């Protein structure tokens, strides 16, 4: 039981230290690689097809009007 409360305190302290923003630990190798992996994907250039798709949806809209 005593163990438990210590654990909770340490947990809270660690959460405070990390601002709860980096559940994987800001300086861990895995956290950094994960970020690198993902950021690379996010920065990939978006193909035109998506902007075209939204324009098509927009144009199709009045015709779809219900009620």
């Amino acid at each position: 039981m005593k163990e438990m409360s210590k654990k909770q305190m340490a947990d809270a302290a660690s959460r405070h230290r990390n601002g709860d923003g980096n559940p994987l630990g800001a300086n861990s190798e895995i956290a950094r690689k994960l970020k690198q992996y993902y950021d690379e994907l996010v920065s990939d250039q978006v193909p035109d097809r998506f902007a075209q798709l939204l324009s098509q949806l927009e144009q199709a809209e009045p015709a779809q009007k219900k009620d």
Partner: protein
Amino acid sequence: MAAVSQSFKTELLGAIPSLRAFAVSLTQNADRADDLVQETLVKAWDKHESFQPGTNLKAWLFTILRNEFYSQMRKRGREVQDSDGIMTARLAVHPAQHGQLDLKDFRGALEQLPEDQREAIILIGASGFSYEEAAEICGCAVGTIKSRVSRARARLQEILKISGEDEFGPDAISAQVTGSNAA
């Protein structure tokens, strides 16, 4: 049906890079990912009225994308991977020097994770969602997300043969209690 507002459209456009990144993380396939994003955008457009302005649009879109992904998987007759049933035998990546982990190796390791663990660690560790938001996106309890993230992390460490990352491992807490740098 109310017209889709210009700001909704602008926000959709802005969310595309994140959606694509999440889709690639889920599918591990660029073409399938873009199809998934396309499907997500169409769905989001159709049901834009169910989005509550002022809430997190990105989380809403991620939820749609994720649902679409799992529904496609079911249609393909593929069983959704259960993390408990995954064999560890095929995990074989050559050991990485600490701090010199290759991104390619990391990608390979990520690919070996069961979907539920992969999506959890991506949502929390990369997409910037809170545990609560991730739980909402995945339709499960916060505790489930936490345990998936922790298993994903442990699995990645195992595959990549990373050790000494105690600061966040299961031992992190006890290390802080007993450890030397308890500041």
